[in-house]
């Protein structure tokens, strides 16, 4: 196992004049996450957007869309759970996440968000199968919970889709941290395109209109937000242009535009086009999530992206005077949770 997050100790042969480093080795460490995590980012967004679509479809009596979206949400959140647990160093200890609820930890907050969202989405999806449940107390409960569960899922869904940006930004990974202002919009936009695209695949053209609209709105949001995010990231924005991350981002942009155009132009008429566009949108969303993830990882591995912005902030006279707020008080009690040892 390389002791250096994958960077072999090759000295930088041509040192960059704007900064120094220790033999070109990383300063911070990249999150030890595998593809499970960007997969979750994608799936979580897909689930959230789908629950929103489902709730809207429910209210608008669009049964086909409602069913497709609810089942998508179920599959997506199920996949999310699997991905998250699988990525842990000790999967059997997943439930330790429920020991605390820490506002300073987006992952802790996210745990509770998922904990609240999951059952709601499952229940809403289950109610699509009331036919299969033998009559009795259970089937009555499920029919009763039908709409409330869907609404509840839809209420949590937006924050489910956007909190993951906070999760990534609240780290020392330069590409994630420097883009914190716009990343929630990138993620939300991406969730919308994914949900819209998937619904376009799973529903007939006639019933997929809200999905198309959601997808187009999401595509616009995502594309604009990414540009704005890059602009506010300084030199770190390079990580979204270079290497694997750059390829993924560019691919996602292509797929998203392609998919969006497809839905606008022919999505209303052609099932085939709708299918292909939807697929492009879904894949585009996945590429966005994987691309941002990868940009973060490569920004952590290259010391330039940690050192150069910090040196700049020193030169610009950034002071560390911090506003001391009630926030500090809020942090405190959760730091003394000890085991029984």
């Amino acid at each position, binding site marked *: 196992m390389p002791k250096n997050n994958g960077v072999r100790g090759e000295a930088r042969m041509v040192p960059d004049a704007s900064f120094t480093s220790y033999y070109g080795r990383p300063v911070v460490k990249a999150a030890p996450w595998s593809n499970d995590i960007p997969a979750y980012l994608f799936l979580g967004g897909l689930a959230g957007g789908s629950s929103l679509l489902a709730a809207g479809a429910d209210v608008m009596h669009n049964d086909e869309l409602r069913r497709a979206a609810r089942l998508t949400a179920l599959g997506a959140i199920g996949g999310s759970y699997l991905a998250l647990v699988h990525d842990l160093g000790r999967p059997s200890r997943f439930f*330790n996440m429920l020991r605390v609820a*820490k506002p300073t930890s987006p992952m802790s907050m996210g745990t509770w968000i998922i904990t609240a969202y999951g059952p709601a989405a499952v229940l809403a999806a289950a109610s699509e199968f009331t036919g299969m449940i033998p009559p009795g107390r259970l089937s009555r409960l499920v029919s009763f919970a039908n709409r409330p569960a869907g609404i509840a899922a839809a209420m949590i869904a937006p924050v489910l889709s956007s909190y993951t940006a906070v999760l990534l930004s609240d780290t020392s990974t330069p590409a994630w941290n420097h883009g914190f202002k716009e990343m*929630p919009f990138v993620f939300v936009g991406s969730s919308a395109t994914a949900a819209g695209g998937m619904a376009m695949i799973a529903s007939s053209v006639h019933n997929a209109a809200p999905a198309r609209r959601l997808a187009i709105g999401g595509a616009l949001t995502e594309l604009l937000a990414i540009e704005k995010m890059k602009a506010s990231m300084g030199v770190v924005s390079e990580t979204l242009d270079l290497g694997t991350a750059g390829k993924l981002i560019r691919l996602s942009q292509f797929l998203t535009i392609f998919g969006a155009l497809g839905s606008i132009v022919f999505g209303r008429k052609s099932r085939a086009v709708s299918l292909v566009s939807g697929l492009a949108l879904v894949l585009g969303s996945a590429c966005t999530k994987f691309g941002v993830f990868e940009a973060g990882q490569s920004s952590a591995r290259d010391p330039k992206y940690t050192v150069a912005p910090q040196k700049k902030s020193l030169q610009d006279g950034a002071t560390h005077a911090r506003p001391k707020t*009630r926030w500090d008080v809020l942090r405190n009690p959760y730091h003394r949770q000890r085991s029984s040892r």
Partner: protein
Amino acid sequence: MSKTIVHLGLDPAKISGWDVAQPRMGFFTDTSLCIGCKACEVACKEWNEIPEDGLDWLGISYDNTGSLGASSWRHVAFIEQAVPGGRTDTPSSASALDGSDLRWLMSSDVCKHCTEAGCLDVCPTGSLFRTEFGTVVVQDDICNGCGYCVAACPFGVIERRTGSHGTKNVGLAQKCTLCYDRLVSGMTPACAQACPTESIQFGNLSELRSRARRRVEKLQLDGNRAARLYGDDPNDGIGGAGAMFLLLDQPEVYGLPPNPVVATRELGQMWKQAGIAALTFLIGAAAASIER
């Protein structure tokens, strides 16, 4: 939300709820005394039963550890510098008087035990906690290896341990505990105990800070203008460190971030942006769903 002035100051333990009269303890690593012997690395591994983590020759001076990590809680860095021409203004530089001076910086890096600790802030299981000594420690019976702390650390210290099945604490986040088990018995951490030149000094943190300031003043008076303290300032981006250093060059030369800021400082803003985005999503989805 009204602004309440809360001085974290030097005592994060008290703020975390500890009710004991235990002064904050920490390290002062004076790298001008380091001889690069790596006794600290070995003593730490022996005491904490840390697995060997790689028989790879890195070819970077005498450093084959590379960096701090899950199985390297002390890391000695080696930086060879050729300082052109004449005598430099650094007493540690040995003058060859033949036109070029050589300098070999050595420094034992360790977890900073930050006053505002990113790893601690983001830990979702409560495994990481603040001890009565003001240090930050992982409880390895709680950690589930989510790895979030790894990305949150501004110094790249904590890491998730890899290895074969059966390796101690494999899959868990691991880092320096400042020998918590030794501290509760009134002992000195293993690395400080082993360091032959007292480059690694352990003790009451405010006392160490005064000592560090006196030492850096002395070095500067002796002509070593590049000497500086790192991690000593409570007004820095992490509220000051529980492990501070006397460096003889810029931090990034040693692989340290020049101006680290814990991400939690901006967490409020992050949630705000996320909230707006979520609201936008809700409204947008609602709008998209309206069908005549």
